[in-house]
């Protein structure tokens, strides 16, 4: 059952991911990306981590595509021009190289998924990982302030 679910999810993930990086229409690409991330949230559920799935759904599958759509509209980017031929070659080369990186890991077939409850994750986050957690919150604050300052229309 889980294998079937995995294959289904993985297939759609790949299809929409490829769509997201190849389609000429920017809006379509953004929507494909949202679907990809939504499906990845499903994969997190398969991995027994509903907390991650929820966060993935809220941040990557919702907030980011919406922001992307905004920026697409604000910059009037309807379409993305097609790649130059050398770019395709470079892209394929890079993709192949990435697969080479992962090649060695594919064989690890054994092991059991251990589900983790959102409670466990939360407790751990606020105990053992308290400092990184706070640092992450500061990072987000900085990013917010930075984005506001950068995007602000300058006087004159």
């Amino acid at each position, binding site marked *: 059952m889980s294998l079937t679910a995995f294959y289904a999810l993985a297939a759609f993930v790949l299809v929409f991911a490829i769509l997201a990086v190849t389609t000429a229409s920017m809006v379509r690409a953004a929507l494909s990306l949202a679907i990809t991330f939504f499906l990845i949230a499903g994969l997190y559920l398969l991995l027994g981590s509903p907390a991650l799935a929820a966060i993935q759904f809220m941040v990557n599958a919702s907030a980011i595509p919406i922001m992307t759509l905004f920026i697409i509209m604000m910059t009037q980017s309807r379409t993305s021009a097609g790649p130059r031929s050398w*770019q395709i070659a*470079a892209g394929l080369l*890079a993709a192949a*190289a990435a697969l*080479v*990186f992962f090649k060695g890991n594919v064989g690890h077939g054994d092991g059991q998924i251990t589900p983790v409850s959102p409670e466990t994750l939360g407790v751990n986050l606020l105990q053992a990982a308290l400092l990184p957690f706070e640092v992450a919150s500061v990072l987000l604050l900085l990013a917010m302030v930075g984005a506001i300052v950068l995007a602000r229309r300058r006087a004159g």
Partner: protein
Amino acid sequence: MSYVELSYWIPLLPALGFVLLVLFGRSLPGRSSGWIATAVMAVVAVLSLGLLRDVILAAPGWDLAALLGGNHEEALAKAGSPDFPFRLEWTWLAIRGEAGIPLVIYIDALAAVVTAMVALASLFIHLFSIGYMHGEERYPTFFAYLQLFSAAMLAFVLAGNFFHSLLAWEVMGLMSYLLIGFLYKKKTAQQAQKKAFITTKLADLGFMLGLFWLYLLIGNFDLADLASEQTLALIGTGAAAAVGLLVFVAAMGKSAQFPLHVWLLDAMEGPTPVSAMIHAATMVAAGVYLTGRFYPLLLHGEVLWVVAWVGALTALFAAVLAPAYADVKKILAWSTVSQLGYMFLGLGVFGWAAAMFHLLAHAFFKALLFLGSGSMIHGAKTQDIFEMDRLKKYMPWTYWTFLVGALALMGIPPFAGFWSKDLILHAAEEHARFLWLVGLTAAFFTAFYTTRMIVIAFHKPAMPSPWKAAAWTQGAPWLNLGPNEAEPDPSPPEGHRPHESGAEMIAALLALAVLSLVVGFWGSPVFGYGLLTLVYWGDAPELLPAAKLMAGYVTGTLVALAGAGLAAYWYTADPLRPRAPVWLTAALQRRLYLDEFFYRALGALAQAPTYALELFDRYVVDALVDLVGYLSLVASSFLRHLQSGRFAVYALYMLLGALALYVGGVR
């Protein structure tokens, strides 16, 4: 507590005065900074007179009759006190308990006398400056400088260690530089201060080299040690000659001896009290004093004849040039050069005590003359003697005091210069007959230019100065100034009436006039050579009974009277006489082209190596730099294509880099 124990305050007090005036001078009202400085010098003068008293009481006494009879072994009438010469010593620059260079105050009779001279001259020059410098911008600074200068000069005289002499010597050089350029807005003053500093600094190199060499030879810098037989025995004749001459070069620079005299005339750009203090009475005498201190070494090295020749030539040279000048300060400057030449002549012909006597006498009467000229300039508003209007009538006090100084300078009995100069000439007659003739000729010219100055400035009505219009006074190539940059000295305003100077100034003049008379008599045979027997050192052939000197006295007086008479005869009739040919006057005015020669020759000498260096710079250094630039240009013409401006390409580089790391084994 004796004055000897207090003696370290003598240089210290003016130094403190300097600090005080530098820090707070600007906030002191009116003339108070001048009065404070004068008060400091008054205390110093009291201390140094007390010191002189202590020294006179402690010094050995001499039986004059035995001395005059040439019987030096039996001449000692009263043994000196056991701790004489006094010596105060402090540890300084101690390295692990061993004093590297001890701080020594050494007070023998000469040091005490010269200290008293410097303190007194400085006191009266301070007093004079209170009125003279009034209204001048930077009034407190002027007194601060005078204070530090006095401190340095006193420290130089009292130093028992040549290393400290050198330090004080250099401070004096600095103060001379600062004070010559005190009126720093005048371009001529700026150039003059540079000229003085560079010339004397060049000469000071001799002092340093000489001292270091001396240290290698005897292992210390001690002044008293140098005079001892044991020390001299350590030094070979050649080395002694070399060290002595090196130090003598420094003395020539400081005391403006030919050919290093070139700076002194331009130094007259400084305010008149500065000329009186530094460039007449004290600092320029420091060279003579130093040579006097190195006298044993020069004697040992058998090079005293060099000193004698330099001195005699300078004495004549300067005295001949002086009559070609119209600026009262410049005439006095030449006269100073000439009189310093006499002192070196005296040292060179074994007349050590006579030279020191002349040093003291000259200090007072030359300070008097310079201050008198300051009073004249102050009253007449010009420095040009032709533009001065019958000053005798308007400035009687100045006239009579100036006359005392002038008679002393000419060597008319019974004034100071007569006694001292004739002793020098007598010594020259004994040991170097030709130089005696040179000295006599110089004496003739001395009387001549002094009388000319007095007649034209004090007795004749004002007239348009013939020198100002003349072509040769335009520009000053020896100062590196073009025709338009050298400002002529200001003429007095139309209808200006000269007026007598203020009370402090007159008081200073009177005091110096009295002092120069006193010093003259103190050293004269009339009063038993008091000064000379006090500073008596070693062999003293110039001490002769007055009767034996009579021939010399008569000759000297006659020569002086001849010079004075000729000048009085010519210039009373017509101030513009004698009408020398233009080329001669121009040559004299341009100082026989010596300054220009130095300016050009030294300039060329300095430039020659720079041409070679320039070629090296252009074809070696620059070529290397160009090569480096060319190489990076070539490299960049290839590498710049990597910088395509397309981020995808950069991303690819990153990826390739990661791949390379992977392949290279970093996992």
